[in-house]
């Protein structure tokens, strides 16, 4: 009898654990290949429920909004070398211009702006009653300083490209700023878009320097929120300022926003499902899939630009990839959707150009069809075949997604007669390989640029004038010439024609294989939130959420 009881107890415990196994969905991160779900996301602009909801139909904001992210907590210095907290920047600072919930460029700070007759300057006037949290009155000097800082501290993806502006000769006078442009009216006409820049208090920023801890614990901004609590590398608490200079009685801001960084995506999503979190930024692909399938109760999602395009770039000057037939064979010999799904699960769109599709200068040049027979023919023209295979080397980064894509490429290229050897190592080891031009091809992630989505910034890295010569550098005269002409173009449309030429040229000559546009998402509690505003579809602006009524 005793033994029977023990046996029964043991069986019950084992069954209980197996039940737990069955209900636990994989939370292993974004490198898991999906099974039946359509991997490609149809439209980064679309989302499940928000099409019928406008930002204006909102219930009252909660007292506390809990937000989670799997990125590092970041700094509230917009140019921090350790990375910035994008959502936090919107809260603590005002921006010169920003996208409102109707995707219009607006400003709370600028009252008016005017171009000079020749188009080489733009003068903007700001309000006189803007105060930073330390009581200092905002003037044109702060605006000019903030714009100049983007150039001085440019880190790449998160800063706008002000190469086209002559900030050294721009001036500030009281509450006015006159910006000179180096080239043409293009810069001036793009000015509002390029001016999605946080406004810093010049006197304070200069006094603390860029590396001060005050950027984390006590940043001085003119925005509606201040930092009331900060835990190193873990969390921020933002509290609405009593002394905010703008009347926001018609806006629906929560009193407190808690922002927590999670080292585990699964933990963040479980918190969202349990209701401890209201918004989860950048969930894992497997968790996003659950939200898309409706498996998580009261959890909805909206897509966000991933701000990264993934390319395969070739060493087209040395080695086998100098032959366009080899590049064509690779381009057509791999099913790039398989590669994308292996790397990102559901978080990608098929790339149809070198530029991401949300760029104003983007043109659809198509993508390379998966055609193994064509690939074999091209390879045979280059003198290789399955009986006489070609061996290529590729250096990839260390994360699981990179390795997964390399594995898929390896297996599919093997079928057409290419032995792909890949080496995965830490970035500190891999980057020197790229810098040295080692490897016949490599996987590169092109940062999608700033919120301005400026094509010039992207193509500059391809040109022979790029700061870092790595395997992305194509160094072809075509690109250099087109870039120079785009800079001198009189209108945005004219500049875009040159960018279109670059995209077409790269595609026709198989210079890169742009196989994936990364997509990200924000998941949120649909029983609490009805709308999340994503300016430029890049990052959630936590000021402008609509809440369930």
């Amino acid at each position, binding site marked *: 009898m*005793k033994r029977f*009881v*023990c046996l029964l*107890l*043991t069986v019950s*415990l084992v069954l209980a*654990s197996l039940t*737990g196994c069955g*209900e*636990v969905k994989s939370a292993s991160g974004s490198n898991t290949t999906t099974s039946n779900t359509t991997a490609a996301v149809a439209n980064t602009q679309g989302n499940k429920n928000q099409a019928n909801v406008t930002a204006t139909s909102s219930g009252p904001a909660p007292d*506390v909004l*809990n937000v989670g992210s799997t990125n*590092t907590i970041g700094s509230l210095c917009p140019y*921090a*070398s*350790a990375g910035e907290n994008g959502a936090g920047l919107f809260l603590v600072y005002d921006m010169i211009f920003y996208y409102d919930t109707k995707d219009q460029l607006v400003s709370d700070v600028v009252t008016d702006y005017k171009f000079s007759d020749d188009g080489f300057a733009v003068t903007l006037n700001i309000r006189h009653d803007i105060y930073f949290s330390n009581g200092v009155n905002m003037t044109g000097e702060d605006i000019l300083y903030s714009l100049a800082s983007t150039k001085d501290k440019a*880190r*790449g*993806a998160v800063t706008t490209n002000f190469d086209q502006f002559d900030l050294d000769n721009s001036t500030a006078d009281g509450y006015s700023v006159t910006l000179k442009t180096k080239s043409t009216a293009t810069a001036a006409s793009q000015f509002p878009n390029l001016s999605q820049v946080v406004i810093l208090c010049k006197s304070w920023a200069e006094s603390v320097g860029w*590396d001060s*801890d005050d950027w*984390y614990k006590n940043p001085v901004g003119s925005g509606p929120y201040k930092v009331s*609590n900060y*835990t*190193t*590398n*873990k*969390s921020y*608490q933002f509290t609405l300022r009593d002394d905010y200079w703008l009347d926001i009685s018609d806006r629906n801001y929560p009193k*407190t926003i*808690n922002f*927590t960084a*999670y*080292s*585990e995506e*699964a*933990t*963040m999503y*479980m*918190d969202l*499902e*349990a*209701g*401890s979190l209201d918004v989860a930024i950048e969930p894992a692909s497997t968790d996003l899939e659950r939200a898309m399938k409706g498996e998580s109760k009261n959890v909805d999602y909206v897509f966000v630009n991933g701000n990264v395009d993934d390319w395969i770039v070739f060493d087209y000057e040395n080695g086998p990839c100098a032959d366009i037939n080899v590049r064509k064979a690779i381009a057509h010999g791999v099913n790039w959707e398989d590669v994308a799904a292996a790397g990102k699960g559901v978080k990608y769109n098929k790339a149809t150009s070198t530029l991401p599709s949300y760029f104003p200068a983007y043109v659809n040049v198509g993508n390379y069809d998966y055609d193994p027979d064509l690939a074999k023919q091209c390879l045979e023209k280059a003198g290789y075949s399955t009986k006489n295979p070609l061996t290529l080397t590729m250096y990839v980064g260390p994360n699981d997604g990179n390795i997964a894509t390399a594995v898929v490429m390896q297996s599919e290229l093997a079928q057409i007669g290419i032995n792909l050897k890949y080496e995965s*190592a*830490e*970035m*500190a*080891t891999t*980057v*020197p390989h*790229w*810098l040295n031009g080692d490897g016949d091809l490599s996987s590169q992630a092109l*940062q999608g640029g700033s919120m301005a989505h400026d094509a010039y910034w992207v193509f500059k890295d391809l040109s022979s004038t790029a*700061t*870092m010569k*790595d395997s992305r550098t194509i160094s072809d005269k075509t690109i250099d010439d087109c870039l120079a002409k785009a800079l001198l173009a009189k209108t945005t449309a004219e500049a875009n024609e040159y960018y279109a030429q670059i995209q077409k040229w790269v595609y026709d000559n198989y210079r890169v294989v742009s196989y994936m546009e990364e997509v990200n998402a924000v998941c949120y509690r649909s029983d609490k939130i009805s709308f999340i505003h994503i300016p430029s579809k890049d990052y959630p602006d936590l000021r402008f959420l609509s809440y369930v009524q």
Partner: protein
Amino acid sequence: MAKYIIKRILWMIPVILGVILIVFCISYFAPGDPVITMLGTNGYTLEKYTALRHELGLDQPFFVQYLNYIRNVFTKGDFGTSYAYHNSVSAAIVEAAPYSLKLGLYSIILMVAIALPAGIISAVKQYSVTDNIITVVSMFFAGMPNFWFAVLLVLFFSVNLNWLPASYMQSSATWKSWIMPVVSLSLTSMASVLRMTRSSVLEVIRQDYIRTARAKGISEHRVITHHVLKNALIPVLTVVGMQLGGIIGGSIVIETIFNMPGIGNYMMSAISNRDYPAINGCVLVLSISICVVNLLVDVLYAYVDPRIKAQYENQQKSWFKKKRAEAAQ
């Protein structure tokens, strides 16, 4: 006794120096260049690379870097600057330490509070249904990975029942936020303590002096608590000491799952980011913790077992006696 404790503390120093040497060598000889990691592909220029390398002292020879590191650690408590976050590793560890200490302490208390009584009951009621149930349950938890158990707890108590918070949220943390992390860490470590308690008590309970105590009419409760338990505790203490190391190590995963801002979570982030100063700092702190814990366990032996205390004192007395005899000669 004091001399013994001081001697043990002094022995910790070469142990810590050895740990520092090992972790420093690992990070020094690891492939790759951390400066490139810090600059990133977009921020890299040769000038910035050279300047940053010099600023971090990475252009110095190995022994210079090692000695500088030791000097900074012992004189300033400075573990360097994090490559990933660009802030002081020491400050981050100091901020994270209370959470890890609390988690470890609560887990140990719960582990001992469950394992000791359960082990005693199991031993006293050997071969009974109670004994079998306790044995099966302890084996069940012994075989279950603590991280998996943690996830099950979250799914059941947070997502399904909504009784407990799924993770430790700084802004809204209460005593409920500690329940699942502590339970998942302690229950999976409790099995060996329970089993050792059971076997130790069984061994002691069969001794003649226990039979004598019972014969004298002492209540069973008093026999167990005053006679059996004290004598059975030595091996149990040993196992508890070993489990403390497991709890300190296991807390790394538990803190990550529950997003607790402790040293373990910080270390996991550092490993993901290949942030060697932070990894070195965390390993050093954890090593010191284990040394201190082992020392405490050894000291506790002396208080639990008077024979050990007397042995130390006799050694000391005999040393003094010997010296006096030599002096007299």
